[in-house]
């Protein structure tokens, strides 16, 4: 607890101060001395900020919520494969296993998939087993093991059917990676519920800072913080490149790109063709999309702007779901944005909404 309460900047500053004095002993510092001083200050500042950013313990509540949401999405996504299983994973599938492996080797891809070696007669049983594991992962049972197995499952399915994938699968994959990396079963999980039921933890233990990385910790841990930070950074990378890559296209500059999305019959689920009467609205939607995506990696770190940025994330993705029928992609992007929701807010919402006190740790 004392680690958490100690103001992080104070001791760093005190430790750095004597060194500053040593370098400023001479009456008038030489340019070289000033440069050395600047280098020292830069190094101290970078190291301090780096450590504060990555190695400050955080409550795993947000990570736990992301596991529940992403795990449910994984379960649904993989259940859907089973609705036409033979066409995607059978010996006479759309793209056979041999052909996929030829494709991967042509691309010089270093990939693996257990589907390359599972005999066809066992394939559906393996699929059901995978669904079971993903279900356990979603509810957070044996999470340390099921999260790693979920990662193997997600990668294996993706590498077996690489040409049937889209953005949804990429976000599924990266979220599963970070959930397997961090203590995603430490909160909002059957594991934590069982721990409390079996009396292996108590309130005092839950509120302490986990020592070291905090593997299997139920309280705030550096381990949870690293996983959440990586999700946050990856979301910034996604939006930034989604934005700047659009800047190559004329339609994103002349304001008509969103029309291309609305007027595509293969995507359309909501008739937005009335917008043809109001080109100014198409322009606004197009330009705002670019602006929001490109500025996301900056504005989302500004505390006062973060709620606005996340609000527009929900709005943008709900629009994609509603107009283009890509609800799964829209929802998983929103789940990724949950990484920016502070854990205390997650706990407050869970406690208020569900009134399940035994489940909220």
């Amino acid at each position, binding site marked *: 607890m004392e680690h958490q309460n100690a103001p992080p900047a104070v001791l760093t500053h005190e430790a750095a101060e004597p060194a500053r004095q040593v370098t400023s002993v001479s009456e008038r510092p030489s340019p070289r001395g000033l440069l050395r001083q600047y280098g020292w200050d830069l190094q101290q500042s970078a190291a301090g900020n780096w450590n504060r950013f990555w190695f400050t313990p955080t409550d795993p509540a947000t990570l736990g919520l992301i596991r529940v949401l992403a795990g449910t999405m994984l379960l649904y996504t993989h259940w859907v494969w089973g609705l036409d299983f033979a066409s995607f994973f059978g010996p*006479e599938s759309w793209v056979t296993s041999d052909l996929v492996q030829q494709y991967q080797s042509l691309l010089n891809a270093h990939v693996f998939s257990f589907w390359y070696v599972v005999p066809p007669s066992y394939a559906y049983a393996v699929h059901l087993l995978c669904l079971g594991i993903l279900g356990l992962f979603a509810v957070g049972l044996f999470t340390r093991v099921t999260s790693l197995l979920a990662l193997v499952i997600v990668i294996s399915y993706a590498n077996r059917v690489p040409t049937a994938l889209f953005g949804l699968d990429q976000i599924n994959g990266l979220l599963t990676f970070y959930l397997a990396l961090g203590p995603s079963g430490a909160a909002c999980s059957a594991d934590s519920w069982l721990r409390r039921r079996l009396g292996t933890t108590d309130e005092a233990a839950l509120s302490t800072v986990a020592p070291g990385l905090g593997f299997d910790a139920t309280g705030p841990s550096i381990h949870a913080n690293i996983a959440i930070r990586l999700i946050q950074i990856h979301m910034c*990378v*996604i939006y930034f*490149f989604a934005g700047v890559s659009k800047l190559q296209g004329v*339609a994103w500059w002349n304001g008509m790109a969103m029309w291309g999305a609305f*007027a595509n*019959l293969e995507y359309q689920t909501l008739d937005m063709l009335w917008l043809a009467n109001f080109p100014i609205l198409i322009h606004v939607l197009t330009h705002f999309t670019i602006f929001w995506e490109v500025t996301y990696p900056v504005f989302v770190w500004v505390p006062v702007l973060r709620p606005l940025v996340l609000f527009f994330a929900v709005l943008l993705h709900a629009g994609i779901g509603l107009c283009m*029928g890509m609800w799964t992609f829209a929802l998983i992007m929103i789940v990724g944005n949950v990484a920016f929701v502070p854990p205390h807010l997650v706990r407050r919402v869970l406690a208020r909404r569900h009134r399940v006190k035994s489940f909220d740790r």
Partner: protein
Amino acid sequence: MDITPQDADRQPCQPWDAIPRWPRRLITIWLLYHVIGIIAAPLVVPPTSSLMRSVSSVFRPYLQTFYLNHGFHFFAPEPGDSTLVAFMVEREDGTSIRGIMPNRKIWPRLLYHRHFMLTESLSYIPDELSEAWHESYARCLARKYDGRKVRLTHVRHFFPSPNMVLDGVPLDHPDSYEATALGVYERDTD
């Protein structure tokens, strides 16, 4: 007792001091490698430079192993036409079935998108695999509809401009489709 700066350095005063220095340095190296890697991955989506390709190659095996090697070029450079596949499957009894992939009636919507991505992939698969790709699609259709012969057609579907829509042109106007025959494939009964 006074605490010297050296003592202060040694004491576990900061939360991160709970991790010994060397493990923390190793984690830092991995974090740098990982973060630079996920930033480098989108930078090699064409058009790109040979420098970016060289930099990216350092991270490529790692990113591919964990399925993190993504470009995130959603709807870039701009939303375009759709690629579809029209088919006709002939059965042993002489009857035939015509259809188009993806079928908009496929439910749930996620399964529809899976089929749509399969047809969209025809626009980017390597040329040396395209014939095998078409054969594989034909084999799958023959299995699904119990057919002996499958005729495949590559279809590009253009979308109309706002002015065309205002003039009453529907999204599925026959002129908005451009068909190219891919071939006729017999099912291997062996």
